[in-house]
């Protein structure tokens, strides 16, 4: 089985994630979308690493995962703050700042 299928899978994941990010009104939903996009990155990295037989890719993947975790954690924290002060997590209700 060649490299392309993995890349395609990753591309699909990325696309789905992006779609989710753009369509979900709920901040949590958007976070999930981002999660998907970052996982597509991991799939890519692992696939490349496997086919190039080069460990760097795997290390890269590990870093990506950890960073993803950090970002999502921060994201959830911000969402909680938002909910505390605004009583909503609907992304498109948050438009005090514009213009």
């Amino acid at each position, binding site marked *: 089985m060649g490299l392309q299928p993995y890349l395609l899978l990753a591309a699909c994941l990325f696309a789905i994630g*992006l779609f989710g990010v753009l369509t979900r009104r709920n901040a949590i939903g958007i976070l999930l979308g*981002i999660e998907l996009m970052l996982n597509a990155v991991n799939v890519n990295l692992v696939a490349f690493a496997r086919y190039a037989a080069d460990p760097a890719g795997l290390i890269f993947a590990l870093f990506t995962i950890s960073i993803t975790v950090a*970002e999502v954690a921060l994201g959830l924290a911000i969402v909680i703050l938002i909910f505390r002060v605004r009583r909503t997590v609907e992304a498109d209700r948050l438009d005090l700042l514009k213009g």
Partner: protein
Amino acid sequence: MSALGLELGLSTLMLGVFVVGVVARDDARRIAGMISAIGVLALAVGSFLLEPAPAAPGDAFVLDGLALFAKQLLLVATFIGILGSLSLTDPAFRRRAPEYYLLLLASLLGMLVLVSARELILLFVAFELMSIPLYVLSGFLKRESVAVEAALKFFLVGTVSSAILAYGLSFVYGAAGTTALAGVARALGAPGPLLLVGMFLVLAGFGFKIAAFPFHMWVPDTYEAASTPFVAWLSVAPKAAGFVAIFRVYLEGVGDRVALWIPIVAGLAAITMTAGNLMALPQRNSKRLLAYSGIAHIGYMLVGLAAVSASGTAMVLFYLVAYVFGNMGAFLIVEAVAQAEGSVHLDALRGLAERAPLLALAMLLSLLSLGGIPFVAGFWAKLYVFWAAAQAGLYGLVLLGAILTVVALFYYLMLARPMYIDAPRRSGPIPVSPPLALAILICTLGVVGVGVYPKPLVELTLRVANALF
């Protein structure tokens, strides 16, 4: 002293601040600010003592001329930013001072590493290390709904962009078969489709960090909501780091194949200049106006980048310096006025010339610099960037830039008008806390100094840039 000296020093400084945060009781925590200010100042001075070390091809972390130049610039900018932050009055900044400065320094650490990184993984990690604290800082006043909203927007756009960046990096890695930028540059000799996709995705990712149109949309909101001294710093430091990273990835060692990026970067430059300047016109909120004008300036720097030549790169670096002083100065003066008037609306500046002539003069100088008028730094910056672009044959961009400069002058004069022409709402002088005053003074001196005698800086930047090609 090893190549990592500055980073190590900064880490120890962070440790100190952290300790303060643990041991000091609530009001005593303010000294965290002092400590970090002094520490950063020390580091800045140290950075000027360092000598650049020519990079070996395989290095993942280098301290070549470009890196050192960037670090010096970042440290100076951060020092100014911290000085400005010391004047913040909101109790949160007193009680949670260590937190604030710790995050600031962490982000700075990310930048310092980023400008030295010549390895994809390190680049990505440093990038995130720089970004994540910024999200927190922009929402630092967690009781204020606007601040948190701004933080969320900043965060969402930022993470999506970094996802795109990472995705792109994964392709680059896959196509180049290595994570060393030297290898990437080599691979660019015969770029395959994967590599190109990767590179363009990466460019999109960086586009967010330097806030090029249309990745800029988080900028105005974040700038408006976050605390002004932080914004002053945010508006320059990450962008400087971002540009340096772009140089590393796209120009360093790529040699004559760089022509590949010209059309797309030129396009980004054009729309960024245009959009930034035009959207700044109707603004009545000083911070938003400066935010959009900042976007426009990114456009001008992209013009220099589009020249993809040594002189172009050098002139972008020069522009960054002028931009750091001019922009930070303007933001900090807005902060000074806001602390007295409690408003960042243009009307808050009314009659400034009568109430605080020196402050008004400093603001005027910053604005003239941003507008590109002789005697001040911005004039040379624009001149050199256009010069480089003209040498690269991008006459269209130069013409567009020149016309948009007139547009820009319009809104800078609209900013100067209330200060000098309109009568003051309230009389009486405007108190400015010493650190803030010092910061403003530094910026003004920088603007004037570079404006009056740009030669050494020009030569330095040229030296730095030539090493890349």
